[in-house]
């Protein structure tokens, strides 16, 4: 068993592009759920509409890359408006139902055979990433290791993606921080606590919820665009509901309603899921595996990480429901 391989896998994933995608998506969910109390179960929908907005503009319509980015972001904003108008006046659960349904509808439409000419069917679209990769200043990959003991390694493309990605994460966090310390953020947090009280003080609750939905959706859109840029293809099946729920897991690990909660949560989430996955793959692999075949084969071992992830989330909810950054006193208030 090679612990260098395990550490390399865990760290490369925790600091790599995949964690960045989830950090960005979770920052959006933090605005929705953490600050405003909006249950958005369709963050994957915001991601997919922005991703395909870019891909379709560049590949199908043959327009410039920057126009594609713009189309993608406008798509995310429009989706928020369309979802918000009918549901934000209703109870929170309706938004949850509508968003999860919409994200699935979008995924199925983008993958439909009927629209193969536009969205590329189940294989999705490729060939829009050139302008992005052309900007890459790095000529080599990066790998840090002590002897043969690996610590972390990135390919040339990943190195460019994490540079852009962490910059985006930092900018997003800055925006969230600046907004949430303001009176505007105070209104959002108050809406999360009690809508009617906010209304009775003369605030237009609907308008604030809509602003929050759009802002979080824009972060979701950035996550979607970054996702297809870092892997070079827009594939509809990437944007299934698991995507949203992994982002929620990351948010809850880090702590909701904390600026850095989703970022640290995402790093921890991917460190654990890749680390544990790599550990079991190493432990069951080779001619003389540490864990013998009759307990677990290598195929089975790939699922164990998900079992442990579920167990970990349960323990987190029991022993540290506020997440890493949360304030225990806030959770104690709920118990009253």
């Amino acid at each position: 068993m090679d612990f260098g391989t395990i550490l390399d896998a865990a760290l490369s994933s925790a600091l790599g592009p995949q964690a960045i995608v989830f950090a960005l998506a979770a920052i959006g969910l933090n605005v929705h759920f953490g600050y405003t109390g909006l249950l958005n179960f369709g963050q994957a929908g915001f991601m997919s509409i922005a991703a395909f907005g870019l891909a379709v503009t560049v590949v199908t319509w043959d327009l410039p890359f920057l126009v594609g980015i713009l189309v993608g972001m406008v798509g995310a904003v429009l989706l928020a408006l369309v979802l918000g108008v009918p549901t934000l006046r209703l109870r929170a659960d309706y938004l949850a139902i509508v968003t999860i349904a919409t994200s699935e509808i979008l995924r199925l439409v983008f993958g439909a055979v009927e629209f193969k000419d536009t969205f590329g069917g189940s294989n999705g679209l490729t060939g829009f990433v050139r302008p992005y990769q052309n900007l890459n200043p790095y000529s080599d990959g990066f790998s840090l290791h002590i002897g043969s003991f690996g610590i972390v390694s990135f390919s040339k493309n990943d190195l460019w993606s994490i540079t852009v990605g962490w910059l985006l994460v930092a900018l997003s966090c800055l925006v969230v921080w600046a907004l949430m310390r303001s009176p505007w953020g105070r209104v959002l947090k108050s809406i999360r606590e009690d809508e009617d009280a906010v209304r009775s003080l003369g605030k237009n609750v609907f308008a604030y919820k809509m602003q929050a939905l759009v802002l979080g959706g824009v972060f979701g859109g950035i996550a979607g665009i970054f996702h297809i840029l870092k892997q070079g293809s827009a594939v509809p099946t990437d944007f299934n509901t698991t995507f949203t729920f992994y982002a929620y897991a990351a948010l809850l690990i880090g702590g909701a309603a904390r600026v850095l909660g989703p970022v640290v949560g995402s790093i921890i989430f991917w460190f654990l899921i890749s680390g544990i996955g790599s550990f079991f793959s190493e432990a069951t692999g080779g001619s003389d595996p540490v864990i013998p075949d009759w307990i677990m084969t290598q195929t089975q071992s790939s699922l164990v990480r998900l079992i442990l992830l579920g167990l970990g989330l349960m323990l987190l909810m029991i022993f540290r429901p506020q997440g890493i950054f949360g304030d225990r006193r806030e959770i104690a208030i709920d118990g009253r």
Partner: protein
Amino acid sequence: MAVELNAARSALASISKEPGSKKPDAIVVGSNITRTFGGLKAVDVEHIEIPRGVITALIGPNGAGKTTLFNLLTGFDEPDEGDWAFNGKKLSNVPAYKVARLGMVRTFQLTKVLSKLTVIENMRLGATGQRGERFFSAAFKSLWSSQEDANTVRADELLGRFKLDAKREDFAGSLSGGQRKLLEMARALMVDPELIMLDEPMAGVNPALKQSLLEHVKSLRDEGRTVLFVEHDMDMVRDISDWVIVMAQGQIVAEGTPQSVMADQRVIDAYLGAHHDTDITEIDLQDLEAEADAELDAEKDKA
């Protein structure tokens, strides 16, 4: 101020005691307001006028429609029909937040403090017209910090007045029931309302705090605001109200000064039941049964 108050009070003395009577200077005027829930007519008010500058109590037994009327007047619920006006401005179909901005602010029967915000943040939220509450200026602190400071000063004054200054940095969720009522009242004052509507301000408040709460309600009137409150506590009604409106089964059944209302037979009947001063052991059981049977028969005939 005291002169005005006395004038307003003496004006009330000459007003007719009939339900829905006209007031010389009414801040809220409403007519034909109805609201049904399924088959139940929760509110059916022919005419209501709230006098300006004094404390008006809205009383009535449970289910009389007091809170529903509150919800209708403040835009938290929509009536089946009816129109009402605040300072002459019609409020039908005006959303709740706009009603509050006009200067008509309410509190809630089940206190609504924002638990996970500190007491001072609860207070700051109440201030109106904040530049920092607009999305595009929110991110730039220099645009709103001076206004925020001014609001904080005002909030601290109010906290001092309501004796909540020691709790300034505590989460509102950690306050006791009575302190929450105080906070809600203080927060409503941050809006600087002309009419403040208190829904059962005494519910769940311990007797020691009650007296100081009474003083606070009186102080609202003394600084020139109109107060309308719903209450079950008769001592409070007698103690502080200048005018009393009595509701039963959705309708206004009586109005008047506290003394005259408490002596009104319709009020006593509505509140305590027509048999309230008979000893139940003396009531003839057979009479009661006959009465009940007659009622049942009547129902059957209807069906």
